[in-house]
């Protein structure tokens, strides 16, 4: 699966190199362009996670023990941190996706695309602060001597 991502990344890198070689200029982008880049990156990462996640959930058809064992890895500190990253990626993709829909269908969407991007990022921060706390609270308290 990772071949797709690496091919895309390499193609992107060589495009940039080629563009700067040919003309000596390189479009450094607008926040709107970076929102599009981030939308692609978060989408691809989520798709790869979904592949793994359906396979691990399928272990419920093998045995309760096999499923419980693999789910235990989701509760380890490192993977728990990756879950925060996953939630952050999916939340960005969802909020920016709604922004894309508004740009496409709302008559004033294109006019307000930039303030909508800042709104999107503001909502993202507001949700991620308590979200990160609730996702990591137990893991952190267990790491630093607390217990349940």
């Amino acid at each position, binding site marked *: *699966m990772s*071949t*797709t991502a690496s*091919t*895309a990344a390499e*193609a*992107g890198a060589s495009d940039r190199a080629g563009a700067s070689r040919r003309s000596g200029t390189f479009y450094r982008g607008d926040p709107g362009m970076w929102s599009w880049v981030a939308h*692609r990156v978060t*989408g*691809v990462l*989520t*798709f790869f996670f*979904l*592949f793994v996640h*359906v*396979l691990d*959930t*399928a272990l*419920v*058809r093998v*045995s*309760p*023990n096999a*499923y*419980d064992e693999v*789910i235990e890895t*989701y*509760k380890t500190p490192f993977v*728990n941190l990756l*879950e925060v990253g*996953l*939630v952050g990626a*999916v*939340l960005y993709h*969802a909020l920016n*996706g*709604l922004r*894309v*829909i508004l740009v*496409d*269908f709302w008559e004033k969407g294109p006019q307000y695309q930039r303030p909508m991007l800042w709104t999107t990022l503001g909502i993202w921060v507001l949700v991620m602060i308590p*979200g990160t706390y*609730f*996702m990591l609270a*137990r893991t952190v308290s267990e790491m630093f001597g607390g217990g349940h």
Partner: protein
Amino acid sequence: MSESLTLDKPRSPRRPAARRNNFELYSWAFMRISGLALVILVLGHLFIMNILDGGVHRINFAFVAGRWASPFWQFWDLAMLWLAQLHGGNGLRTIIDDYARKDTTRFWLKMLLYASMAVILVLGTLVIFTFDPNITA
């Protein structure tokens, strides 16, 4: 896509039709409709599984069995599986079209993509419909 942007012979009577069918239009619309549904389905799933009431620490076989005892959550998970896989697969299809340099690369990456989508959709659907809470370890 790229052929519709080709302007080298704009007045040529034999210029290929810019659009052979409406597949790209339908896939564009599908991304927006499925995206709206997935905002609810996926963010709800992530909130329940990762944030609410202890999050991931309370998940185990019994927790899954309790949820899939309800047709509501079975349908939720089935809809999420199909919409997410088709939405993500269509997104990756677009990305492969954008970045693959050679037609053979493009072809084989898409075959890999479609094969993985088929495996995940069939496996995930079977798991939801054949789940047995009393399976023996």
